């Protein structure tokens, strides 16, 4: 056997088949997309182009361009009052994805457990396994998709090394207020569980101010913080993010990073620097637009009879489809085949999400409306058949 056991036993085939079905179909209205429908703001693209014209085509230091790390330091200081040293506590990574892989490989000894509240983004579990760790999934579906101190304590044992927290959450759009985070933080500190905080959707928080986990009392030395440019600046394809944390962890991560990635492409780094300088207005504009679509989708889905709570962030709604009697996968497949609307079955994000689907509202209002018309037709047809 040529393939390692870990890789061979890794992750689902069912979802893959569904994804292939979507990709093979024409004229689909897709609400299954996990990235903004905006193009990267022009001034950021222009900075990338200009850097190429100027001949910036070389490697950078492993940690990333100093001016970008400095920009990140200032950004976090202004926004959250956080002070990370650009020399030792900030690392530029190929998206948050690379950063997560790095931190898990840096901290896990064989058999160490990593807590993963679910539903969650798909990579946390597999990457933990690749690093030799044991993912411990915490089903949050009975707690409004939120992790609570009680749930946490129930799952912590001597082997627990860390937790991957993601808020606003992909796929549910759920986020946490300061008070809730403080309670979680207390449990983590008491039990010496490292917080791996994926806050890539932070700038898309609608109902209250986002609170960065390391800005909580005593949390900074117990947290590795992740953010990126993909979601807030619509820069998914540039593949650039960053990690901030205690210097010994960042140094360990940089060890792996220097042998595997070397450095993030310089064009992306130059563009990201510009994003921090002049991107704020674009972020605000996009956020305003998403917020309207969020309100629109929540109202419409509820009136169609798909119970949908009001998410606080990201660009996803996570309605329940339980009253259709269909499984997430069947609902998604039938909706695709009959009405050519693509959504992602909740089960893609963990078993606790059976009975839910993820719909992205990173799509124009016209698209959203047309999708809703089709979903309505789809639901009526089922009702009629049942009646």
């Amino acid at each position: 056997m040529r393939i390692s056991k870990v890789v061979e036993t890794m992750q689902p085939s069912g979802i893959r088949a569904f994804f292939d079905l979507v990709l093979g179909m024409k004229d689909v209205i897709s609400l299954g997309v996990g990235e903004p429908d905006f193009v990267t703001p022009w001034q950021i693209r222009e900075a990338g182009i200009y850097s190429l014209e100027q001949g910036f085509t070389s490697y950078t230091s492993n940690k990333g361009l100093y001016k970008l790390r400095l920009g990140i330091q200032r950004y976090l200081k202004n926004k959250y009052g956080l002070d990370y040293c650009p020399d030792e506590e900030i690392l530029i990574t190929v998206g948050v994805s690379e950063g997560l892989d790095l931190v898990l490989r840096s901290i896990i000894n064989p058999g160490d457990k990593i807590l993963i509240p679910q539903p969650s983004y798909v990579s946390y579990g597999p990457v933990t396994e690749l690093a030799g760790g044991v993912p411990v999934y915490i089903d949050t579906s009975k707690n409004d998709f939120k992790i609570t101190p009680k749930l946490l304590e129930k799952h912590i044992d001597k082997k627990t090394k860390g937790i991957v927290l993601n808020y606003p959450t992909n796929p549910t759009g759920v986020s946490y207020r300061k008070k809730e985070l403080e309670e979680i933080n207390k449990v983590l500190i008491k039990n010496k569980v490292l917080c791996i905080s994926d806050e890539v959707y932070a700038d898309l928080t609608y109902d209250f101010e986002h609170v960065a986990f390391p800005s909580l009392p005593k949390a900074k030395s117990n947290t590795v913080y992740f953010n990126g440019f993909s979601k807030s600046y619509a820069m998914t394809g540039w593949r650039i993010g960053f990690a901030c944390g205690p210097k010994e962890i960042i140094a360990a991560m940089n060890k792996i990073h220097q042998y595997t990635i070397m450095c993030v492409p310089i064009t992306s780094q130059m563009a990201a620097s510009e994003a921090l300088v002049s991107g704020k207005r674009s972020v605000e504009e996009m956020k305003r637009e998403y917020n309207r679509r969020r309100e629109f989708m929540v109202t419409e889905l509820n009136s169609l009879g798909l119970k949908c709570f009001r998410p606080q962030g990201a660009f996803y709604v996570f309605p329940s489809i339980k009253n259709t009697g269909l499984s997430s996968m069947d609902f998604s497949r039938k909706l695709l085949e009959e009405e050519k609307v693509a959504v992602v079955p909740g089960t893609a994000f963990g078993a606790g999400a059976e009975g839910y689907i993820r719909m992205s509202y990173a799509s124009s209002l016209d698209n959203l409306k047309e999708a809703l018309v089709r979903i309505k037709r789809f639901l009526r047809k089922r009702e009629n058949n049942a009646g």
Partner: protein
Amino acid sequence: MDEILDILEKDCRTSAEDIAKMTNRKVDEVKKAIKKYEKEGAILKYKAVINKDLVRDNESEVRALIEVNIVPQKDLGFEKIAERIYSFPEVTSCYLISGTYDLLVVIEGKNLHTVSNFVAEKLSCLENVRGTATHFLLKKYKEDGVILKHKSENKRIAISY
């Protein structure tokens, strides 16, 4: 600015019902607000932005930007003379500007001839107009925040995490 105005400015076809859903307000409240804006003149008009290069008919038109130098009048400044100029139906926009010239006037005509006639016979001979400089518009790239190009197709893959 009120969100309602922002939404309408982006797409004036958005119905009061949809605006209500988008802003989490009551439909009646939105309708009332829009009526009020219309009455006060905050909302002046609803219109489509048309790329006339793509409209095939014979009524092609010529546009020109004209810089106008005027002598301000005592007590009235530029107001009165500006009014005399912008009241001509050929004038589509009129701005008071800083710099060498005083007014920037945008005019539209059927052809070069009608535009130059307007400048020569109407505009230049107004009492307070000291001089003009006419710039004919050759191509429009962007207008009112809209890039005049076919929308490029969506480049995202149809499904992703």
